[in-house]
């Protein structure tokens, strides 16, 4: 009881003695963990460089400005590649995500104890691993290039899209499905008439949302050699051509802003 009786007057406290002790211990552990983490980071940092950082930052800034505007003529093809990586990657991932989502949703999975866990495993493992790592792996397997980027984006997006989609499938109105079943429709007809119309808006929203994220991710895939504008960024960094780096960063920024704007517009139109 948070209310204590002390010499006839009632004292109200937010928590009981036990609860507040528990809270204090929790906070103490939290602070200790953070202190340990900070100490570890600090131990592996060369503090001389850090104190020198403002000077270096200023130095980089003066070298990077103004951007080398005429370099933009060489960025057309990389930007086109980046767009293709994101778009084709999203399309491939949707093709893969739809069946996975149907297998993972509780109300459509053919087997709860065998197939559903497998589908969930596919979702969590593709989601857990960043597209840059997928790109590294694919470059090791099929060689550098745009194709590796497309596949990396596709694999990374499968889990994301399938997760959102199976949640949408689980939220559908079951009586509409029942009504279609009652007409004597076959399993696939129930799917096409009862389930698909209900999840179509969610599907379109997910597709556009993921496409926006994929534009961002595909801008940096080139850093590991998987095509797109990141390749130019990487080579400019290697030769310390800072005016080119700043221009590329501006282009990436613009691409991100535009894709976010497009995706917001399209999603607004769907809903």
């Amino acid at each position, binding site marked *: 009881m948070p209310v204590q009786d002390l010499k006839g007057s009632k004292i109200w406290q937010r928590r009981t003695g036990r609860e507040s002790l528990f809270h204090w211990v929790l906070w103490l552990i939290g602070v200790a963990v953070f202190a340990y983490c900070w100490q570890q*980071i600090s131990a*592996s940092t060369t503090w001389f*460089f*850090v104190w020198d950082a403002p000077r*270096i930052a200023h130095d980089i800034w003066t070298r990077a400005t103004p951007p080398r505007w005429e370099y933009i003529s060489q960025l057309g093809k990389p930007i086109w590649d980046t767009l293709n990586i994101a778009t*084709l990657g999203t399309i491939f991932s949707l093709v893969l995500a739809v069946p996975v989502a149907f297998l993972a949703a509780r109300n459509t999975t053919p087997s709860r104890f065998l197939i559903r866990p497998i589908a969930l495993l596919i979702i*969590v493992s593709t989601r857990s*691993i960043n597209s840059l790592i997928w790109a590294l*792996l694919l470059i090791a397997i099929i060689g550098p290039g*745009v194709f590796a980027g497309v596949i990396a984006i596709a694999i990374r997006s499968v889990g994301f899209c399938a997760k959102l989609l199976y949640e949408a499938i689980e939220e559908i109105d079951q009586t509409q499905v029942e009504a279609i079943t009652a007409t004597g429709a076959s399993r696939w007809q129930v799917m096409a008439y009862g389930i698909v119309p209900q999840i179509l808006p969610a599907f379109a929203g997910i597709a556009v949302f993921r496409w926006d994220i994929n534009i961002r991710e595909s801008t940096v895939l080139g850093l590991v050699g998987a095509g797109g504008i990141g390749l130019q960024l990487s080579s400019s960094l290697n030769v310390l051509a800072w005016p080119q780096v700043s221009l590329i960063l501006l282009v990436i920024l613009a691409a991100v802003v535009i894709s976010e704007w497009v995706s917001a517009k399209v999603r607004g139109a769907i809903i």
Partner: protein
Amino acid sequence: MSEVDTLIGKTWRKPSFIKRRWLRWALILGALAYLVAAYMTIDVNWVRVYEGLERGKKFVLAFTSPDFTSRSSDIYDGMLESIIMTIAASVVGIAISIPIALGAARNIAPLPVYLICRGIIAVSRALQEIIVAILLVAIFGFGPLAGFLTLSFATIGFLSKLLAEDIESMDKVQAEAIKASGAKWTQWINYGVQPQVMPRLIGLSIYRLDINFRESAILGLVGAGGIGATLNTAFDRYEYDTAAAILMLIILIVMALEYLSGVIRARVQ
């Protein structure tokens, strides 16, 4: 019955999603043309891909026999560094994003503060983690400090935006009731706003912890500390069994975090 008589015998077609015929065909043809053009530029080297299948098979098989031992000290150090960066960056990032979120909520903050905070959020969200990491490594040198700063910076954009949206959509009446009692601004935030957004803040924080861990795995690629460097080396040397071991650890930790977030979210709601 005259109306129905005119309808009978007529074929029925589902009305199209896009009503104007020319627009529909223009969109379909445009999409097809784009797909063809995009496919042409991919330029797949099928011979190379075919050769790669063998390596791909090896990689998949490596998951059945992951090698945790031969590089165990590298894996251990890298993982620990990733986790340390994740935790430290999440704590600092969350601590900074709360005031920024308050400033970025239009129903709480005055306009100048609102614009500044929204600006910070926009910059943080527009810059990719890996690009920030490259710049910070250039400025602060190699090591986990750059990674830590990168993740903190990214956390601010993510968390402040979502939290600010939550504050903006909170129940006004509750907050007004507290204000009506004559509370100071800080008291008002503490009693009128905080209880309403706390569950969401906790949920988002754990979600961001999860994201930070996943991102920390790639920061090593550009020298900002964590498991990424070890992973990169493993791929470069075609040591698929070690790579498989690292990936499995990442997946396991992400799964554990997701489970944890489910438990905690169920408790706070």
